[in-house]
């Protein structure tokens, strides 16, 4: 008896819905087993993951994952595996941070005696009331314009960073998976360098601390009450989603970005230089990732850039990797991105709830954030990658 994999005569639509759902369930079951092996009670695991679906905190990850999911789907549909959203977000943060700290507003020392005078001046904020060297931030432009500039420059920086691997792929045929991933590590270190030197805050007194000043709060995005998501990031998610869907539907550029993924040789044969579209796909993808980076920075809960102590816990929260899951589960179909963004956001939030729960209930288990995010994400991906083939193939038994 032999098992034989054969191509289906008709591809099955049922599987397009069933397989992602099945992958999530099987991947979670696998993770439950892995964690149960060291004593995490399965019911705790499951209940915390489910709690993620109702947590108000989930909304924030949802908005970010929609933006990133759209970003990655754009490059994946063009058959360009942009695994570098992490680095592109980092550059979004750096560029957005630069605008917020040096262009739209400016930090400066004042003498301690003058400090009370600044307490109620519009556009001026005391960001460090140190008795020795107090620091204030002075707004230099209209804060709405400032926020807009932050987003635009963040997008530009993310897009440019994404162009590096795009050029390498389009013109030198260097595999983009490896180069985008390696460039993430480069981005993390350059981030550390810039944050520790060029962007280092005036208010950072101790030598061993490396971070920027706090942003002027007028430049922070506005929280939706009762949640940790901001109005601006929700708006961006909606605008990006709609405009990308429209671009694919109604423009020649969108059509070509789609066709480059299914058959780049067609573009070449009708006289379109497909390499330019590789650059474009990556640039757009990086731009959106950059916008996501700015959103993280400008969230009132963050508002500053800090040196990355360990590459497993960057300020991007590894969402650039997590979004791969969103895009794949959506089978690269934009319409499904919001749905899976919500599911993945819930899992993401669930695993951080789980971590705090375990730390308080079973401190001896000492589970890290990396274990709790990478294991479920990885397991779901592995199962999905394998099950995915059944949309186009079936397995038969031969006597």
């Amino acid at each position, binding site marked *: 008896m*032999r098992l*034989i994999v*054969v*191509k*289906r*005569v*008709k*591809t099955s639509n049922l599987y397009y819905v069933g397989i992602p759902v099945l992958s999530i369930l099987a991947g979670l079951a696998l993770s439950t087993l892995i964690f149960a092996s060291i004593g995490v009670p399965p019911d705790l695991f499951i209940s915390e993951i489910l709690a993620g679906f109702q947590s108000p905190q989930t909304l924030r990850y949802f908005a970010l994952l929609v933006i990133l999911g759209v970003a990655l789907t754009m490059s994946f549909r063009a058959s360009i595996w942009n695994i570098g959203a992490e680095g592109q977000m980092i550059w979004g943060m750096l560029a957005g941070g630069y605008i917020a700290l040096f262009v739209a507003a400016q930090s400066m020392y004042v003498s301690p005696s003058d400090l009370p005078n600044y307490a109620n001046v519009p556009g001026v904020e005391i960001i460090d009331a140190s008795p020795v060297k107090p620091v204030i931030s002075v707004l230099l432009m209209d804060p709405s314009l400032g926020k807009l500039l932050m987003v635009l420059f963040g997008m530009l920086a993310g897009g440019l960073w994404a162009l590096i691997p795009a050029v390498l792929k389009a013109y030198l045929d260097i595999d983009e998976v490896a180069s985008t991933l390696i460039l993430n590590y480069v981005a993390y270190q350059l981030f550390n360098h810039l944050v520790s030197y060029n962007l280092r805050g005036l208010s950072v007194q101790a030598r061993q601390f490396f971070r920027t000043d706090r942003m002027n709060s007028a430049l922070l995005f506005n929280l939706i009450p009762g949640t940790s998501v901001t109005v601006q990031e929700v708006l961006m998610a909606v605008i990006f989603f709609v405009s990308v869907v429209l671009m694919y539907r*109604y*423009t*020649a*550029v969108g*059509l*070509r970005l*789609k*066709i480059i993924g*299914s*058959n780049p*040789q*067609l*573009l*070449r*044969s*009708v*006289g*379109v*230089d497909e390499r330019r579209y590789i650059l474009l796909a990556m640039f757009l993808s990086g731009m959106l990732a950059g916008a996501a980076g700015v959103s993280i920075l400008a969230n009132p809960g963050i508002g500053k850039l800090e040196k990355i102590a360990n590459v497993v816990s960057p300020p991007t929260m590894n969402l650039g990797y997590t979004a791969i899951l969103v895009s794949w589960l959506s089978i690269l179909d934009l319409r499904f991105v919001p749905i899976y963004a919500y599911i993945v956001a819930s899992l993401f939030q669930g695993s951080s709830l789980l971590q705090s729960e375990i730390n308080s209930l079973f401190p001896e288990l000492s589970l890290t954030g990396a274990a709790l995010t990478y294991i479920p994400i990885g397991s779901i991906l592995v199962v999905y990658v394998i099950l995915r083939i059944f949309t186009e193939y079936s397995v*038969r038994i*031969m*006597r």
Partner: protein
Amino acid sequence: MSTQTFFSLNGEKSLNPIISARGLWKSFPGVVALKDVSLDVLPGEIHAILGENGAGKSTLLKILYGIYVPDKGDLFFGGRKVVVTSPQDAVRNGLVLVSQVPQLIDSLTVAENLSLSLSQFGYVSSVRKVSKFLLEKGREYGVRVDPDIEVWKLSYTQKQLVEVLRALLLNAKVIAFDEATTLLPHAEKEKLYDFMKLFKSKGGSVLLVTHKIPEAMEVSDRITVLRRGEVVGTVRTSETTLDQVRYMMFGERLTQLNSGKYEKLGEKGSEVLVVRDLWVRSDYGVYAVKGVSFSVRKGEILGIAGVAGNGQLELIQALAGLRKSERGSIRLRINGNEIDVTNKGSTAIRRLGIGYIPDEPVKKGVSLDNSIEENIAVHPRLTRFLIRWGDVKSLATDLVREFSIVTPSTNAKAKVLSGGNLMKVLVARELTVSKVALVAYNPTRGLDEVSTRYVRRLIVSKAVSEGMCVVVASEDLDEIMEISDVIAVMNSGSFVGVFKSGVSREEVERVMVS
């Protein structure tokens, strides 16, 4: 007349077939490739499997060779029922394949390649030992090939010899030739036929898969004809005629094939495409086109004949702006203006109204995962920044009607279409944009006879009615002979002969291989 008439069962019941297939079925997306196909190969015979492209010949062969698995049906080798799921299984059962594209690894030496087939050499044994063995055996069988040469340096015929040597070393009982003689020049073909007869005389069997009737008539003992996935019949070659086999192959459509006269213009217009001293490099960096000059008039068809790999592909790609011209010039004369398009980029050239049918058209010229409308809208001459889907749809609907493309709708994904219909989508799109000229390479490769006629007629009639000039290169000499006004023969990167239509086939062939 029913096809059953030809079903003459073979009389040799006493001879047990060495390979026997019973009731094979096989479906692919959009097509049933084999319908209840049965076949017997007897010991010591040359058995031809004849059919047009898409008749199911190669599917059948791939099933015998373990590359495809049938949906239904059984295989018997030497009377024993077997499940064949890999070429190794087939080889173990005594069937070895020599294919049209030699299945050898180009970057490996002959010895390395053959070592992979020879189980008497263990995995840790050194390649040097295999070389020595091959030299000995080659001498014994009279097949002389240097075992230490890398395969990519061999000529096509030499590669086929290596495959034959391999079959012999594997003690094949049946050697299957899959269109293996199609691309060979005539003299080389004869050598292969002689070999087949020799092999037969020693008790071996040959399975000859071909779409050329004369070839089947010349060497085979029996012929099995396939049409649209079904066996039309098996006949003894000595008891049949060419016309009978032709009818078996094409059925009622034979009449359509015979009415194959093209309307041609006597007078041609002024020169439209002028190429002077063109030099183009191949992918390997050497010159593939060496100083070619020609001009094509309005409404004229220039056919470029030649054995594959003599620079035709590079020349066509240079004309389409897809390959850099190192020297020389390509000029277009449109409405009295002369435009130099040498290295002007393919988008610009295409916007001027040049259509292009690429080599491997179905692979390079259409995208299977996109709809017919999208496959049309992608052309830069047909859409601006915003796509008006309404316009695209009506154009697509017109083209589907005009070219009788069989499709559920214009919005259907291209992959549900058959190869012939896909090709029509591509030709329809390119003819729509060909206001000035059409450049094509093997424009009908892989099409069935009827579609082939249809595409050729379209190209000719558009040249005649709209004054489009055409440059077509083809490995199929019949195609060139049929549609061209001027025939240029390309050999080693140069035009070695230019003929008016009406020249004899022999004359052209002579220049091709000299």
